């Protein structure tokens, strides 16, 4: 594919769309509003296609794995079978309400998803035991703040001492909120810088370069 099609046209499209959306936000001009609305609608359609792209990639990658008989290719076969079965059942009438589809969701997907998410609690405690080491004055402050925040979230702490929820709330509302505000401002500035690089065609990460 020529460089113009692969690189220049996508960059032009991105720059144009970015400038259009920015101008629409600041200047309530009918032609800008309608163009921006149309652009947003196209994004919705394209995003729908990209979901299919993800599914297609899944099939292609796992099929290759099966054909090359790489270690774990048995799992690749299982992935493809599960994917196709779930897709077909999900598309069966009534869509996503077929009893078999709901059965798969309830008994094959939900339990492991919930279980693995629940493991976070175990790993959190293990990381807390192991990783918090008092080495500097700042780490002592962090430990004290962490203690009060944890106790503020535990209903039993309020029964033991009313100071726990009050101090925990103060930490959340004052120093923690201040830190997060700074984080948001920094992130917003980073996003603006990225936006400028996108408009100027300097940001090519999305093209895989």
């Amino acid at each position: 594919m020529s460089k113009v099609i692969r690189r220049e046209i996508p960059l032009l499209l991105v720059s144009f769309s970015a400038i259009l959306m920015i101008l629409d936000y600041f200047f309530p001009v009918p032609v800008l509003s309608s163009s921006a609305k149309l652009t947003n609608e196209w994004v919705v359609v394209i995003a729908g296609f990209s979901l299919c792209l993800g599914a297609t990639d899944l099939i292609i990658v796992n099929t290759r794995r099966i054909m090359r008989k790489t270690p774990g290719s048995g799992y690749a076969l299982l992935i493809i079978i599960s994917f196709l079965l779930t897709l077909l059942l999900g598309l069966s009438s009534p869509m996503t309400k077929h009893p078999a589809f709901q059965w798969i969701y309830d008994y094959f997907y939900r339990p492991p998803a919930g279980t693995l998410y629940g493991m976070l609690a175990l790993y959190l405690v293990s990381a807390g035991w192991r990783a918090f080491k008092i080495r500097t004055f700042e780490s002592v402050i962090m430990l004290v703040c962490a203690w009060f925040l944890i106790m503020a979230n535990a209903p039993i702490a309020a029964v033991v001492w009313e100071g726990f929820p009050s101090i925990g709330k103060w930490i959340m509302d004052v120093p923690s909120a201040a830190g997060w505000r700074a984080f948001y401002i920094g992130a917003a500035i980073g996003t603006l810088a990225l936006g400028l690089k996108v408009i100027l065609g300097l940001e090519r990460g999305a093209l895989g370069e």
Partner: protein
Amino acid sequence: MGAREVLRTLERLDSRYLFVLVFIVTAFPLVFPLGIPVKISAPVQKSYDAIEALAPNSVVLIGDEFSAPSWTELGPSYIAVLKHLIRKNIRLVFVSFFSAEAPAAFDTMIKPRVDFAKLKYGVDFVELGFVAGGEAALASFASDIQRTLKVDRYGASLSELGLTKDLRITHFSLVVELDPGAHLSEYLRQLQAPYGLRHISITYGVTAPAYTPYLLAGQLSGMLVAIRGGAEYELLIKEPGVAVSGVDGVSTSHVLFAICLVAGSFLSLVNRLLSKEGKGK
């Protein structure tokens, strides 16, 4: 085994002992409820008040970004808020922009637990399903609902459903956003900032500190955090359920975590001092 050896062994304790401890400490109150009183926090009270203040037949947008793994932390809050909204005869529009799984999760985990029987589909509530496109889809939805979505989740035309026929973003009195994917900023950017829509967020414990600035600035009208938020809301609507029964476990596991934090730090400090002392000798 000398004391130093014991301390070193404790510092390097196999995580699996801690896992067993967490299990015992969390499961114990489920079997033997402790009945620890739960104080209603300000963000949850504000959420309740925001819904209480809604007039009957108001329309509320539910940003249903729910998923299976988020059941434990967000499920009880979601159900309690829905029960409250239904009790107040509020009309509901369900839509997701970030979680393709949300409609399926709603069918299997939420609908069986909330009484939708007295509600008429198309008049009292509508499910718009998942709209691909993330924040761009949200922006498009906000600017023109009928242009973005021609049909609902079941293929019925929005122009034929009573609730969505002439629906505009400004008709929504409140947005209740479920937040497993940390997308509150997108909702605030596209719905709160340009259109002034009031927001309530049902969110994880890990994201709550980051949303405190929004709460303090008034951009967020209320917040329900994890299962504790669910328990508080269940108490407020006077329908104690899963969250209230599980919140004792929150207390015990949090206390265990706090102890582990301090004990682990203390052990590493003591062992470091003892080894320095040993080297000094």
